[in-house]
């Protein structure tokens, strides 16, 4: 009988997929393949072959192409996972992203209505996604080659069929920026105890923040480890059969094995960005402030909306001008800017991560913020916005936006919380009926974006409707042992 693996607090990076450790910023070309399982037995056979080929969090990032794998709940059912095991997945995985309640709290209505999504929406069972393959490569040619090679394997015996066109992720020429022109992905939770050599991102490493600012316990991002509450992050479990012997026991569920260990839950959303509308609104807002005799440049309006300058430099540290480089991520709001005179209370980065922003109790606020962090792993899609003089011509141009990917272990407490309680909350931080001026959405009419100022606040109209959801899914990103298990359990 195989030896029962012992659960330790040591981070088993060799059992985690690479996406946990890195955004593959060293590999500019990404392809996301949405697949359906054709023949379950063939799919399991394919998975058995590929499980040991996924790039792990242990491996150093090089130039060779990388593969990671994630499954929807429906995909796991297709694969043959029994109902009693499927029932141990958290509700967001079971229900998916497009229940009426989730659409409400995620802001998916109107232009973002799941009925209009390109993928993952409400187009019926035939369009349901089962497996997501994430491919990363250094060049487009290498990516194509890797895709062909992989397809030869999963196409054989009808294991998987691709659903629609692949989704292409591309870093912009100014690496680390998103299409509106701002540096993205600067503020990330840091996993306590994570080996420093694995902290790769698309950015040069930020200077280390003091302990506590961005630190989260491993269980906030990786299943099976202790989370911020000192409890193991409970993922899916399976019956304790001989086939499951190489999975660790699940300490919280008697007679069960931990299928989640070293895995994570992956949120994937395709967010189209209307660059023309954003730039037009920023220019119009700037013009309006000039007409009122209290001028802000378009750069200033954009920075107020984002909370950082285009370079990524935070307004808290650089209230007046863009220093041209990201600066440090080591800042809070309570001491330097509690009333938002530098970085508005409702600015995008302040909503997405309020840090210690509180007049009365910064340390408790920071503690609470730590319970709602997500590890972002996205990148842009679509060509960079061409510099054209005619906005109408530019708008007819191809779609572009952000492939938003993030990892967390409790989708409701982390990703969804950020969406509804921070980003789309009209009353965030005591504001009175306004949403995130860059990515926000709300079904009721909301007021203008408030920019605190002396002697009295400004209100900026027209800052909404720039981002629309075009697709999305909640997925399980298993650990390597779990991938192997999924390939071997009896059909």
């Amino acid at each position: 009988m195989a030896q029962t693996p012992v659960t330790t607090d040591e981070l088993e990076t060799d059992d985690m997929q690479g996406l946990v450790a890195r955004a593959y910023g060293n590999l500019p070309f990404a392809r996301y393949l949405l697949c359906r399982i054709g023949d379950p037995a063939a799919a399991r056979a394919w998975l058995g072959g590929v499980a040991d080929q996924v790039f792990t969090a242990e491996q150093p990032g090089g130039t060779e192409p990388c593969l990671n794998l994630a499954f929807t709940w429906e995909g796991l059912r297709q694969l043959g996972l029994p109902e009693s095991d499927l029932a141990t997945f958290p509700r967001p995985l079971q229900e998916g992203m497009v229940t009426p309640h989730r659409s409400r709290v995620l802001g998916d209505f109107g232009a973002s209505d799941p009925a209009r999504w390109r993928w993952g929406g409400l187009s019926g069972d035939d369009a349901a996604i089962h497996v997501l393959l994430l491919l990363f490569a250094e060049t487009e040619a290498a990516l194509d080659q890797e895709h062909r090679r992989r397809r030869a394997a999963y196409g054989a015996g009808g294991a998987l069929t691709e659903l629609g066109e692949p989704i292409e992720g591309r870093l912009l020429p100014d690496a680390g920026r998103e299409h509106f022109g701002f540096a993205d992905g600067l503020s990330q939770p840091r996993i306590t105890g994570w080996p420093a050599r694995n902290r790769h991102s698309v950015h040069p490493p930020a200077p280390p923040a003091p302990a506590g600012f961005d630190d989260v316990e491993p269980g906030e991002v990786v299943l099976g480890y202790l989370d911020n509450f000192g409890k193991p992050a409970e993922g899916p479990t399976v019956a304790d059969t001989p086939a499951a012997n190489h999975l660790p026991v699940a300490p919280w569920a008697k007679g069960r094995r931990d299928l989640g260990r070293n895995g994570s839950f992956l949120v994937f959303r395709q967010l189209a960005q209307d660059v023309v509308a954003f730039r037009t609104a920023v220019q119009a807002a700037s013009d309006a402030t000039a007409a009122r005799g209290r001028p802000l440049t378009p750069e200033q309006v954009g920075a107020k909306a984002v909370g950082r300058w285009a370079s990524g430099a935070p307004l808290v540290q650089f209230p007046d001008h863009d220093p041209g480089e990201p600066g440090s991520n080591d800042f809070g709001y309570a001491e330097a800017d509690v009333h938002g005179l530098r970085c508005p209370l409702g600015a995008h980065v302040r909503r997405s991560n309020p840090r210690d922003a509180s007049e009365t109790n910064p340390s408790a606020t920071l503690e609470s913020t730590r319970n709602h962090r997500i590890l972002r792993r996205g990148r842009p899609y679509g060509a960079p916005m061409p510099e054209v003089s005619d906005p109408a011509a530019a708008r007819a141009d191809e779609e572009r936006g952000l492939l938003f990917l993030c990892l967390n272990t409790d989708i409701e407490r982390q990703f969804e919380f950020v969406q509804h309680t921070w980003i789309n909350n009209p009353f965030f931080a005591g504001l009175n009926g306004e949403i995130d001026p860059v990515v926000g959405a709300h079904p009721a009419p909301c007021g203008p974006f408030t920019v605190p100022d002396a002697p009295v606040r400004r209100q900026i109209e027209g800052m909404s409707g720039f981002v629309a959801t075009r697709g999305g899914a909640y997925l399980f990103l298993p650990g390597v042992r779990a991938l192997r298990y999924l390939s071997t359990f009896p059909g």
Partner: protein
Amino acid sequence: MTQSVFSVVADVGPGRAAELAATLATIGAAPTSNTVLPFGRLGGLHFASLVLADGLERPKLIFESNVDGTVAGWLATLAADAGGGLDALFRGSPGYPGSGDPDRVQAWLAGRVVQPGAFHIGATGRTVGRIRQEQRLHDQIAGFLGAEDEAGRLQGLGQAEVRAQVQTFVRSEPSLAWAGAKPPPRESLRDKVGHRLRAAAVVATALVLAPVLVPVVAVGYVVLRAKERTDPVRQHPPEPAHIRRLEETEDLGVFEGVDGPRLLAQNHLSSVIPLKPGMFRAALLPLVLFVLNLLARIVFTKGKLGNIPSIHFAHWSLIDEGRHLVFLSNFDGSWESYLGDFIDKAAVGLTAVWSNTKDFPRTRQLVRQGAADGPRFRQWARGSQCSTQAWYSAYPELTMTAIDNNSAIREGLFTRLDDDGTETWLRRL
């Protein structure tokens, strides 16, 4: 101004469950203006809810009221102005006299009033009228400042000048004439002193009785610890279908106003849960509620309960001869953020109360662990929750923070302020 927080709890008439459910759905679909019980026409009502508690031995209808004035005053209003609605709710309930005789209806309702064991009021002492009036003041000042800014008349002004302009505007605006008068205090001196005297009396009594109490508490503690080790806790997450049903009416974010969709800031939560069996919990829980209520009257009168800034009205009460604990709350933001606040900011108090009810997560020393065990507490909370069939808010667009902010604008409108005070005041506009 006195405010009253309570419920009327009545047995549902035999065979009436289905008909009542339909009635509640009608009221719930348009709580302000429905034809059965149009809450919007009843003055002095902050929040109301109707909850069908059908998990009990005999199903009960819980009618939550959070009102200005006294219980008797509100019941008189109901009996006089909402007789038809009361008939639709209580027809067939044992002894219900029918709206033909408002006095008897009022007496019947009074006999079914359940006073909360502990309650919280966010907007202490402020009437519905005042809350709405102060929101209009805020909106009109915002409109004035917007127009001034648009006309370029704010450029180059100092803060004292802006404040003076706002004051001039308010004085010149006939619809805001009321704002010139000195605002009434949020909490009357009588209430303030009264609550403190009561607390002092409780402490004094406890001290006097200490020789008796200390051994009782010591024995109680030993019994508690033994029970805490063995009390069953919830093993399974609640049924997904149960949660989906709850979510149907949660986080709507929008309501249909007279002139189109409007922002909805609030949510409602109802929970009905059996106490753990036995005398011990039945004795302990009222005591915990009593202490908590005292704290709520003295410490938590500034809009926050614990450190939670988002609760308008909430109360716990015991029904069904003390066998079930009801929790009804009217709060800002999402369920998820409310539960997050519970876990992050108020775990101690909530654990002290709810650990006396069935299947609560494992606790230590009455107040430790329990609600601090986030995932299990959330599962337990979902399991104990029931659907709110109808819910009314008198000011659905207002958060507790906005209500307090509006009051502060009004209270500081014509007072003498130094530079810092002026800056703070202007920040509220």
